[in-house]
């Protein structure tokens, strides 16, 4: 197994996945915000809400195009670069991806065309339904992708089949209702809603600072901060749920995120800040808050959380057990289904640790021939790098709380201070636009980097998952993606900025039609007041 191929393939996957996720959260959130705005339009018939729908819809469309395009890369890359992974777990992992296409992606992709082209071809209600279908489709998409990803974190409902040399599904319900997947789904879509809210808030704030499109901006802020506040609260609460589940199912990831070297007496303290040192197995300059870790991790005051050192000992035991399983598997395979019940029993007993034996394949072709030094190396591999995880997690959480404060502030000004926002707050809202993207990317980093050295936790090591490719192959496509994606990014940013600067288009035709329909009411002097500002 060539290590460089593994590193290059990981780099390419990380790059394309993180790039894809620059567009996904905005799609998730903006689709819902646009649908909310159009709902208000249909209910009140006020033209300004239609203008808002169209304006934010245009920005949604620019973003959606690249989100879709880069998503195709994601689906194909498993087969292109991770062919052994695709063979080994495709029986489980492929299903949610395919169902995503059937149930969700088809829906959003089919109706997004009508969203843009159907304004004159559909009734108001008809168009509103289309918009909601796009939003629902996008969000269901996220559900199935996170069921797939949740299985990589917590591989339930599957077992190894020696005849086919792969994992096979044993219970679809366990895969679908995987608690990790469900928590991740709500956490991820909420993060998308926060991203879109911060985006709408920031762009609107910029209009207010410039004194342009004031009506549109004020109303957009009202939608963004109420929606955003609910979402920001949900992100943190559901993030906490994720944390609780991680303690259960991915102990090493949790311990690494928190730099918990030793098993502490319950309730464990929470390390707020510090400098983790992997070699020395300690955190320097640590600031501890008592009890908090125990509460987050176990929701109790008396359950201890295992520390890294103890978990490493467990890893070593599992590697040794995995070698026994590997030996039994080789015997079963040679006997072609006629092996003795003892061998089968041995495999039953140790088969759950087969993946740990595969960790040794990085150092030796046959895990049964591993030396003690190689076992020690593989054991050490089960601990991901602590420092980046520790800090990525803290920055993400810090930003999450920041969004709650900001959304709450704008919500308060909107509700109780007559939609009057001080200039410093508006400036801050503009500056903070990139922050939710940073938080989202860091979140994925913690989830995926924290799972290393595994692609599927405890089942299949990353080093074993790759395709048989040459360095040249992957370097070529990596360079291709980098070049291509950079150009696309510049084009997309250019267009976004162009359309934001240009602002909403006055919808003259619609306004005329509306004025015509309400001529009689408009001619009564007392009813004119609320139309004065072209509402």
């Amino acid at each position: 197994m060539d290590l460089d191929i593994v590193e290059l393939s990981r780099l390419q996957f990380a790059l394309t996945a993180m790039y894809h996720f620059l567009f996904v959260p905005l799609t998730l959130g903006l689709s819902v915000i646009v649908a909310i705005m159009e709902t208000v339009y249909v209910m009140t018939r006020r033209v300004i809400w239609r203008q808002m729908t169209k304006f934010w819809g245009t920005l949604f469309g620019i973003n959606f195009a690249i989100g879709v395009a880069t998503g195709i890369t994601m689906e194909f890359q498993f087969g292109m670069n991770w062919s052994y992974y695709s063979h080994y777990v495709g029986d489980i992992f492929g299903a949610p991806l395919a169902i995503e296409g059937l149930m969700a992606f088809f829906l959003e992709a089919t109706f997004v065309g009508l969203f843009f082209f159907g304004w004159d071809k559909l009734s108001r209600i008809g168009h509103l339904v289309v918009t909601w279908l796009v939003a629902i489709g996008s969000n269901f998409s996220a559900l199935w992708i996170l069921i797939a990803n949740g299985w990589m974190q917590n591989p339930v409902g599957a077992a190894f089949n020696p005849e086919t040399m792969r994992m096979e599904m044993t219970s679809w319900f366990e895969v679908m209702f995987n608690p990790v997947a469900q928590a991740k789904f709500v956490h991820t879509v909420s993060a998308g809603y926060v991203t879109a809210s911060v985006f709408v808030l920031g762009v609107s704030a910029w209009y207010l600072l410039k004194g342009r499109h004031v009506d549109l901006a004020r109303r957009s802020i009202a939608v963004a901060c109420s929606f955003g506040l609910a979402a920001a609260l949900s992100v943190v609460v559901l993030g906490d749920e994720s944390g609780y589940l991680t303690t259960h199912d991915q102990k090493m990831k949790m311990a690494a995120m928190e730099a918990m070297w030793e098993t502490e007496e319950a309730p464990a303290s929470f390390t707020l800040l510090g400098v983790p040192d992997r070699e020395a197995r300690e955190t320097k300059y640590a600031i501890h808050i008592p009890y908090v870790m125990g509460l987050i991790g176990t929701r109790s005051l008396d359950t201890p959380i295992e520390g890294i050192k103890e978990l490493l000992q467990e890893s070593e035991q599992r590697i040794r057990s995995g070698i026994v399983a590997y030996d039994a598997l080789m015997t079963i395979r040679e006997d072609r289904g006629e092996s003795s019940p003892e061998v089968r029993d041995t495999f039953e007993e140790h088969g759950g640790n087969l993946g740990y034996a595969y960790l040794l394949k990085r150092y030796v072709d046959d895990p049964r021939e591993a030396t003690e030094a190689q076992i020690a190396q593989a054991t050490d591999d089960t601990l991901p790098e602590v420092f980046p995880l520790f800090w990525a997690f803290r920055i993400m959480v810090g930003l999450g709380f920041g969004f709650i404060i900001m959304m709450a502030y704008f919500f308060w000004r909107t509700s109780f201070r007559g939609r009057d926002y001080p200039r410093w707050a508006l400036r801050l809202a503009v500056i903070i636009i990139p922050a939710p993207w940073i938080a989202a990317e860091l979140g994925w980093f913690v989830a995926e980097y924290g799972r290393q050295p595994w692609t599927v936790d405890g089942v299949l090591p990353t080093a074993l998952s790759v395709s048989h490719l040459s360095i040249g192959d992957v370097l070529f496509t990596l360079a291709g993606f980098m070049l291509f994606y950079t150009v696309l990014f510049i084009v997309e940013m250019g267009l976004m900025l162009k359309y934001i600067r240009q602002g909403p288009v006055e919808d003259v035709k619609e306004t005329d039609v509306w004025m015509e329909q309400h001529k009689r009411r408009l001619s009564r002097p007392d009813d004119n007041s609320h139309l004065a500002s072209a509402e």
Partner: protein
Amino acid sequence: MILHELIGYDVLRVIWWLLLGILLIAFAMTDGFDMGVGALLPFVGKTDIERRVVINTIGPVWEGNQVWFILGGGAIFAAWPPLYAASFSGFYLAMFLVLAALILRPVAFKYRSKRDSVVWRTSWDWALFVGGALPALLFGVAVGNVLLGVPFELTPDLFTLYHGTMLGKLVGLLRPFALLAGVVSLMMLITHGAAWLSFKAEGAVASRARAIGSVTGLVTIVGFVLAGLWLMFGIEGYQLVNAPEPNGPSNPLLTEVARTASWLDSYSERPWAVAGPVLGLIGMIMTVIGLRAGREGSTLLWSKLGILGAISSVGMLMFPFFMPSSISPDSSLTVWDSSSSHLTLFVMLFATAIFLPLILVYTAWVYKVLWGKVTETDVTDGHSY
């Protein structure tokens, strides 16, 4: 869960072979005209407004059409994981080129008309050309290579190994027969795009499309017949040595495979499979006649029949093979040994039975809403690309 045993493993495998075929055919029938239109764009639209008409005939639907392809990929992953693993990595650089083209296309659609500069728009027009023509060509090349056999072998751990260097792998795909298959595929989809334009556009655009389409349609027919003759006389086929085990485990190494004189030998076992090429030829010929006579709706349907015939010819000819291996025939992937587990196939069928009819219903509704020709006034109303 024992519910899934209601349907036999062998039956599920055949159903999924059919479903995969249906998805790929649906993709070629729908996104096929999007690609064809992309490839025709610089030639049928002379002015900016004409090109916008061309783009807007597919503007509202290409996104949904493309999902057939994504769904096809997802179905291969879920129902045929060994095939997904071996083919996507085996055609690595070709897949990358397809991806690049497919990424270019949506962006070009959305962005082309968002700026008023001639350079900007012409650049995106050529991006649309590449985004349409390149995948259309490469899909055919891939089919040609599968018919010839792909140089891969499976280790006892079922890890896929390939022979050939990086560049060799890409250039190695361009064998003469595979290139012919690529040309047939490209010409067939361009003709399909022409049939679509003749249906959805009018005036100069439609007549140019008909003129080009009747030529590419003839090339398609000649190429298709040539490819058939080549298969008959010049290319070895593959066959199972022993009777298949339709309920056996999905381990390709358990079946023995040998070469035969020709793929067409299978017609003696399954004479009805001749229906594929016959339908294909009828469809292609009627398309050319329809384009020349200026018939609109029926020509599009004939063109779809041609596509159905051409793709199903390959599928039925090769059954039960998906991807034979030229260097280690026993590693070849077949319907009987490269599927998902019994349970997964059942779950996926269940989901498909619910959602595929829904997809067909709402797709039909969208086409109904968008019914009618796209005119030059349509594209200036601000809701268009």
